[in-house]
């Protein structure tokens, strides 16, 4: 294993401490600064995505009242909201934000192994965001093709933003993937090569495991999006026909011939399904740590949890066509993909059991991070279960393309991971800034966000069962949609506006507490994992002072019988006990 000798490490590997403001906070190569840059940018973009969703809801709740939302704008809002939230907010925040901050601190490294590339990763990400935002200002506006960007319509007249908008969207995605790849190589290499002495892979916190496996998924899945983006750009600009069959667009014969729209869908979902887990696995990992710390109890079935993460990650590459059950692909694929999809439910269910069994007989502190973790459990269980509807091909057929799908994926990969993001921010904020987030504002933010999102998405499933299709500008004159369904849409819109406004409280709390929050001590949650045992809070450049920590146990030594405190730090001397449970077969070498 690649343990680095502590004494040599500082001299050889660590880059010099920056001296000027510019190199310290702007062109910084320090993973902690880059994490905040990534996180801050993602939150700003996320606010844009949130505003777009509220605008979209205004049209659905009050069709025709807001005359500036015409059909073109509506589809542009829908599209940009989806893409921003999935890619530029969640992916960037979990990998670039949490990954950057947590990995080196949790595995006991001084920094990422390629600090310069890490810095580059952020600036390239920022460039992709700028290019994306530019598309709001080109003639025709941003693309309105839906976040899935399905050709042929994405690049044909009849779809908003089919000229500049779609080109900038594709260029931005390609740039984003470059950034993710640079970051991803860094995270994977750091986990494999820069762990502190004693930090075996099976002693790493589950947060690191989740981010690590998600990063591997990203490195394998994003190339499929990359090539399909390039191919669609060629179809658009040079008139190639990768995805374009011979067709007539609004009365005009296009020059295309022989391409396959389904090829794009396969490539897109070969990326798109792992993408769900690129967002979900870090959330799984982080929430495991939140639950364990705040329930003062060792995570239940640690090794099963690790295996579940790895198995889910692996299976996520063979389920993609469950997004395409009614796409017109060979219908026999449905048997395979329904089966593989439902198999993935087994390791996922095990994770849920183990979270709940971690709480069982715990000492549950209902702090704000724990509240978010509990809200995650409810939301994720519901969102996961509705996935069993959509993954089971013959149940999916009537539900596909309806609001049931919208409700399902918002629950499972929108709200659930975001609840973990919030919980994680409340949990690690004192580490990052040395100050606590305000607790009362946190409670307010929690309750409104949790209850609000549930009120938005739970009833929405029923509109989908009724048959209301998604991505409709309006539902005028449909006899099968009763007036009560419109009333429900009004209700959902009102709640969505309240939840949206509540996020102002969160952003305010972040900004205010950074400068005025109560001082935090070094380990306010009395956690056992390594990141809480840096010599300084917030950690300084190089993280560990003169000497790297030495790890003697796993990150979950809570309430160990006979121990004086209810936690034992990972780097406490071996005499303190609290070692991880050993595998029952004698193969493992965990210590």
């Amino acid at each position, binding site marked *: 294993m690649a343990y680095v000798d502590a004494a040599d490490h500082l001299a050889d590997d660590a880059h010099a401490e920056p001296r000027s403001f510019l190199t310290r906070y702007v062109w910084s190569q320090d993973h902690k600064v880059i994490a905040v840059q990534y996180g801050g940018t993602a939150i700003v973009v996320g606010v844009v995505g949130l505003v777009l969703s509220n605008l979209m809801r205004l049209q659905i709740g009050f069709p025709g009242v807001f005359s500036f939302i*015409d059909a073109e704008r509506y589809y542009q809002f829908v599209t940009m909201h989806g893409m921003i939230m999935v890619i530029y907010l969640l992916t960037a925040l979990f990998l670039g934000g949490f990954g950057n901050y947590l990995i080196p601190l949790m595995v006991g490294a001084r920094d990422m192994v390629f600090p310069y590339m890490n810095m580059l990763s952020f600036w390239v990400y920022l460039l992709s965001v700028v290019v994306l935002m530019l598309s709001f200002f080109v003639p025709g506006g941003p693309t309105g093709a839906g976040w899935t960007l399905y050709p042929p319509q994405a690049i044909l007249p009849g779809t908003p933003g089919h000229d500049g908008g779609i080109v900038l969207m594709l260029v931005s995605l390609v740039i984003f993937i470059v950034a993710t790849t640079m970051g991803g190589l860094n995270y994977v290499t750091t986990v494999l090569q820069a762990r502190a002495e004693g930090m075996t892979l099976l002693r790493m916190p589950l947060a690191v495991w989740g981010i690590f496996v998600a990063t591997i998924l990203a490195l394998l899945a994003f190339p499929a999006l990359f090539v399909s983006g390039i191919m669609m750009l060629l179809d658009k600009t040079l008139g190639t026909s990768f995805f374009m069959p011979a067709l007539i667009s609004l009365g005009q014969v296009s020059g295309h011939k022989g391409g396959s729209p389904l090829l794009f869908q396969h490539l897109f979902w070969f990326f798109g399904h792992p993408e769900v887990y690129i967002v979900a696995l870090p959330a799984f990992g982080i929430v495991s740590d939140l639950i364990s710390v705040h329930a003062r109890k060792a995570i239940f079935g640690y090794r099963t949890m690790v295996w579940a993460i790895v198995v889910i990650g692996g299976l996520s590459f063979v389920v993609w066509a469950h997004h395409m059950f009614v796409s017109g692909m060979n219908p026999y694929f449905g048997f395979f993909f329904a089966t593989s999809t439902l198999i993935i439910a087994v390791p996922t269910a095990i994770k849920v059991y183990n979270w709940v*069994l971690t709480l069982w007989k*715990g000492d549950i502190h209902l702090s704000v991070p724990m509240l978010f973790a509990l809200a995650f459990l409810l939301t994720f269980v519901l969102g996961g279960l509705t996935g069993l509807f959509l993954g089971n*091909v013959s149940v999916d057929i009537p539900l596909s393309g309806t609001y049931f799908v919208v409700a399902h994926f918002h629950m499972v990969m929108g709200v659930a991971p975001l609840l973990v993001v919030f919980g994680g921010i409340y949990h690690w904020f004192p580490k990052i800034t040395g100050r606590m987030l305000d607790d009362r504002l946190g409670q307010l933010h929690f309750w409104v966000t949790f209850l609000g999102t549930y009120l938005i998405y739970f009833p929405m499933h*029923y509109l989908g069962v009724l048959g209301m299709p998604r991505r409709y500008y309006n539902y005028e004159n449909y006899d099968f949609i009763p007036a009560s369904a419109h009333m429900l849409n009004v209700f959902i819109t009102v709640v969505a506006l309240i939840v949206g406004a509540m996020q102002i409280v969160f952003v305010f709390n972040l900004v205010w507490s950074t400068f005025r929050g109560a001082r935090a001590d070094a380990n306010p949650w009395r956690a056992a994992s390594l990141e809480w045992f840096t010599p300084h809070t917030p950690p300084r450049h190089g993280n560990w002072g003169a000497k790297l920590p030495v790890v003697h146990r796993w990150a979950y030594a809570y309430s160990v019988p006979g121990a004086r405190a209810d936690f034992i730090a990972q780097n406490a001397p071996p005499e303190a006990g609290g070692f991880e449970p050993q595998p029952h077969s004698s193969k493992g070498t965990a210590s």
Partner: protein
Amino acid sequence: MAVALVLLLIVVASLLFHWLTPWWLTPLASNWQRMDDTLTVTVLITGAFFAAIMLFLIYTVWRYRHRSGQRAAYEPENPRVERWLIGATTVGIVGLLAPGLAVYADYVHPPQDALVLEVLGQQWQWHYRFAGLSEKAGAKGSERLGGTDVRFVAPDNPFGLDPADPAALDNVLVTGNEVHLPIGRPVKVLLRSNDVLHDFFVPPFRARMNIVPGQLSTFWFTPTTAGRFEAMCAQLCGVGHSNMRGFVIVEPEADFRAWLAKQPTFAMALAARAAAPRSTDPLVARGGALAQSKGCVACHSIDGRTIVGPTWKGLFGKTETLVDGSSAKVDDEYLKRFIRDPAARPIKGFAPVMPKVDLSDAEVDALVAYIKAQTAN
């Protein structure tokens, strides 16, 4: 503490909501009862799981909430419990999957004697085609559909039928958005598009499939209830997506055959095209060519049908009511301004989806002359 109570409230309210919801499946109107049954099974299994795991969680949170002096137990694993949970979950998953796959096996095998209906999706309207029910073919009506190609597509041949294919001549073409089907007979739907993705979705039939340009896709169902059912597009197809409406009328076989006999065949459509008078005014002729090349005809008919936008037949000289309640007379000036900036003054009853088209002044004049000519005739 509060959180345990609220979670309990949420779970109870969710179950109650499910019990009392006014929004559920539309009444089934096809043979796919088993799809609904699979949904019911899924609701029951997942609902029971949801309630069980949540109630256990709620009890745990309430029972083991922090109190001073309390210390958590140390139980980092329990392989026996984990094995049991894995086993039980697997059984539940098999219970969901097996009936689902059994239904799907039927879904991918359309009956041999099914009536073949072609649905052509086009931004933002529906067309339908039958092979033709000539008497000599008997009740089966199994004459084949004629060949098609995008290069044959023209305003008077939206299907792109090959005029040289003899099989095409008998095909029955339904260019309106409404189609009739006989009750109680399996229908195999062939789906085709000449522009972008669509999806022919009639919720009460349950069965459906995307429509993909460049290939055929298919599904089947048997209508079991007479009535008029709304069809809609359920795959985003551009700015007019939500206006892509159709209707399926399910009626007794005899009524269906009578209706079908009244629909024109491709041979009749060809004859009508040959007999149609050509305009002599060069400006009008140029406008007609522009209407086709710029794609106006995709939404505006000249025969009185409303497709997406208003028909041009008789449009000139009419008084239109605008969304803001005012009215405007359709004259030269109005038409020119509308074509230049369609979004500025939307018309009541039509979605404001018309795109701005790049046109020179001369081209706009030609178009207006053409629209005018549709009233003069």
